[in-house]
């Protein structure tokens, strides 16, 4: 036991002999002050709490700053500081892509970049040596260097199904995982985007993700990560299944179990297809392919370093026959998908009629049930969330409107305990979205507006009473508008 300890110490000591000193990194690493304001899903006409946090970023070519998108959610003001100095420069967010986890900032005041040097990117698909350094400015404006050891590289997912190369480093950092650059041999090898304080694991987005974003913005238009939203399962060497589906000896791949038509390849792939290879790279029974980082999940071939508009070709086993399919990579659709799965920065839309507060079912709506929303939210809403891919594959195109709650008022007496109900129809018309609902209600000529909800609950509101009482109701609850200004 003692021997191993000494060896470990020696190894660490050797590693601290860095080819580039920490000081020279001071012109590449900046600190970013993010002021953010949460959205208030319970009362969507107002905003939530305001908070500030200090995160890190890295200067890259073209006077840009790279950081973690997830450290900047709901931002209202972003300021950057260099060399631990007190002066703050306002930054603008050029790209914030939650599907790949990175954000790109610019600074109007060119003076900011004076004295700063862009970091050089480490070569892709290569981590030379396993020891890395992580840098940040702490709150006392002193520059910190941490040693980190690579433990694992894998494909991780952001919604909806967007794969990124994520490295895990073990580190002594106590506080971080928000945009700190990770250097190997003085070159930028990744951006930290999460820290598990219990296991001391730093999660780092690989340089391939950074390169992809840089290339993507080069033409002045950012298309984002290609969208590949199918459900699949690994064959995992199941000999019975292989025989049942007629897989030959030496053949391997992943099963497609659900194909929503909106996905890239949604028009050519089918349920029960087995993807044998992608662009000539074989997929093994665990759904993995070989890379210099080790085995990675097959989504890497479709989303890491790939761009919208490119063509992917796959060899697929369908009905015991090998066929070739080709499809173009599509961008992630806005409000993807039926139930918007990424709600960061999204302003919750709402519509109030007769004190009934209608909203859209989104990931943000569910997350507003609290940290344990997967356990606490209404079971029916969770079921819809879990089954969203199946709904989509079955041809559903509209999202879901929910009755969040009822603002008690004489006009809605008797309905005041209703909450979290999924709306089916208004006056017999199937409701597509909030705008549609508003149109139905405003265009109604009948005396009553009848709302029907999933689970056989019906609410009837007197149209005139609701209209004439609206001003008073909004005033009582201090609501500026009965509906949010539509974003589109």
């Amino acid at each position, binding site marked *: 036991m003692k021997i191993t300890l000494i060896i470990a110490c020696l190894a660490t000591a050797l590693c601290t002999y860095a080819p580039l000193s920490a000081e020279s990194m001071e012109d590449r690493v900046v600190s970013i002050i993010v002021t953010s304001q949460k959205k208030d899903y319970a009362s969507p006409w107002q905003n939530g709490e305001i908070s500030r946090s200090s995160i890190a970023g890295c200067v890259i070519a073209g006077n840009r700053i790279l950081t973690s998108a997830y450290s900047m959610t709901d931002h209202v003001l972003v300021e950057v500081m260099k060399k631990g100095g007190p002066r703050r420069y306002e930054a603008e967010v050029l790209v914030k892509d939650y599907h790949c986890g990175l954000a790109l900032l610019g600074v109007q005041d060119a003076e900011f970049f004076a004295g700063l040097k862009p970091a050089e990117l480490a070569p892709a698909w290569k981590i030379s040596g396993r020891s890395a350094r992580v840098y940040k400015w702490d709150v006392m404006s002193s520059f910190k260097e941490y040693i980190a050891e690579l433990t694992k590289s894998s494909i991780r997912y952001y919604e909806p199904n967007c794969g990124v190369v994520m490295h895990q480093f073990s580190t002594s950092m106590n506080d971080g995982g928000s945009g700190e650059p990770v250097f190997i041999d003085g070159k930028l090898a990744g951006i930290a985007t999460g820290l598990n304080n219990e296991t001391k694991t730093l999660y780092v987005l690989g340089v391939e993700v950074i390169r992809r974003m840089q290339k993507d913005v080069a033409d002045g238009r950012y298309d984002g990560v290609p969208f590949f939203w199918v*459900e699949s*399962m690994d064959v*995992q*060497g*199941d*000999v*019975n*299944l292989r*025989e*049942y589906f007629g897989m030959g000896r030496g053949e391997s791949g992943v*099963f497609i*179990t*659900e194909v929503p038509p909106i996905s890239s390849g949604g028009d050519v792939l089918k*349920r*029960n297809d087995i993807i044998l290879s992608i662009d000539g790279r074989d997929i093994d029974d665990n759904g993995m392919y070989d890379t210099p980082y080790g085995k990675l999940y097959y989504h890497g071939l479709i989303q890491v370093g790939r761009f919208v508009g490119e063509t992917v070709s796959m060899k697929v086993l369908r009905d015991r026959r090998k066929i070739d399919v080709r499809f173009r990579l599509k961008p992630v659709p806005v409000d993807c998908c039926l139930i918007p799965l990424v709600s960061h920065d999204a302003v919750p839309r709402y519509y109030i009629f007769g004190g009934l507060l209608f909203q859209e079912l989104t990931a943000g709506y569910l997350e507003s049930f609290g940290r*344990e929303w*997967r*356990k*606490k939210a209404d*079971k*029916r809403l*969770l*079921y819809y969330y*879990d*089954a969203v891919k*199946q709904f989509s594959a079955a041809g559903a195109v509209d999202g879901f409107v929910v009755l969040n709650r009822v603002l008690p008022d004489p*006009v*809605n*007496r*008797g*309905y005041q305990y209703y909450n979290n109900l999924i709306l089916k129809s208004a006056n017999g018309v199937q409701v597509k979205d909030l705008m549609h609902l508003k149109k139905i209600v405003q265009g109604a000529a009948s005396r*009553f507006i*009848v709302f029907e909800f*999933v*689970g*056989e*609950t*019906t*609410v*009837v*509101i*007197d149209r005139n*009473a609701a209209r004439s009482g609206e001003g008073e109701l909004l005033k009582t609850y201090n609501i500026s508008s009965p509906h949010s200004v539509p974003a589109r």
Partner: protein
Amino acid sequence: MKMIHGIVVAAMLVLFSPASPGSEVSADISRGTVKIVRTSVRPDYNMPWRMKDQETTVGSGAIIAKGLILTNAHVVSDATYIQVKKENDPELYDAEILYIGHDCDLAILKAKDPKFYHDTLALEFGGIPALRSRVATYGYPMGGSRISITEGVTSRIEISEYSHCGSVSFLSIQTDAAINPGNSGGPVIQKNKIVGVAFQASANSDNIGYMIPVPVIRHFLEDVRDGRYEGFPTLGVFTETLENVSYRRYLGMRDGQTGILVSVVMPGGGADRHLMRGDVILSIDSQKIANDGTIPFMQGRIFYSYLIDLKQIGDMVSINVLRKGKTVTVRYPLGTYQFRISWFNEYETLPRYCMFGGLVFQPLSKEYLKTWDKWWYNAERRLLYYYSYYIQDAVFPERKEFVTLTRVLPDPANAYISDVHDRVVDSINNVKITCLGDVVKAFRKPLGAFHVIRIDGTSFPLVIKASEVEAANRRIMEKYNIPSPMRL
């Protein structure tokens, strides 16, 4: 509100020095009160072939006419051995259950040896005690071994949940006389007559004890007169209150007309072909129903379900409904509803299951969901959705029960599918699974060389080799010590 059963584990009964009977203690009543010691064994729904550890608990009971002992169902449920004891007799006597009603939490016992009844008093029934009138509870609660008498007033009379069975509500009376674990089944006395059976207490609150009132006891005694307990009938519908005037007008109700709305007709619940969704129930057996679903009762009002609770299964009910603007009278015999997923705690019954090639199939039930710690938060979400909403949302209407693949007992025959569990089964060998018996039938006809099991929520089939199942069954039963491959 969380209810606790008034049972105490009788592992150690500490003997305190007996207090001399005070003048307020009615010696007569204690001669009609008995201590009940029950040993029980419950099955393990996680491994349905297995029983859990045995338990011995103490409760109370009252001697009524004809040498019968009235107590709570939960005092004697799942018993392997029951003994009764009188206050003035050192002997423990063997007793047996004659009738047990789990919905109303009542049971009738008889001591096997007639000697037990020597020098006992048969207690008579009184009526519903007036609010604030004094009552005394007799029984054997925790904190000692001799009879305990507590006094208090009648605090509230209302329909509330009976937690032994769960998901059922009947008339119950609250009292501030202390009701503690062990009091369960003991008589609550006013003017030397039984006015209730102490049965549950509210946790996290002070002095809220509950007793089963005489109307519910009489219903039970009348039910068992034919030698069999059948339980309480159901109206066979879900109703909604109509407190909103717009809703009433929309339904065509005149001012002054009151009633409740039929929102769901439970298929096979006795009301189909008689009541329809959208009917307004104006009166039941000539008793007018208010818009909040209440009827007059003593000095106040009570939920209309009380009218149904007074009836037996098979009794006729006469209902005036407003249907499409016309008042019609419907009459039908009250029945019970066959729950496709049981909403109740179950007793005196062993879990049904079957096992093929290590795959264990069980019907989805509350008892199965309860195998998760804090099940309402932690159990499989999709199962919780089905459990909560299958009636209202009419999920899988063609299924008699929701057969679930609950676990896979690892064996070479199923080596590759062992991480699939707690999913509802759609089909086996292309046979739709609508009840547990279908599983057995479906496994008789493999698809070629394989059994192909399709699981709800995914198109991914589970495949096991048909030729291996029989040997696997034998191997698994021996290895895991399973006495029988099925209990249907």
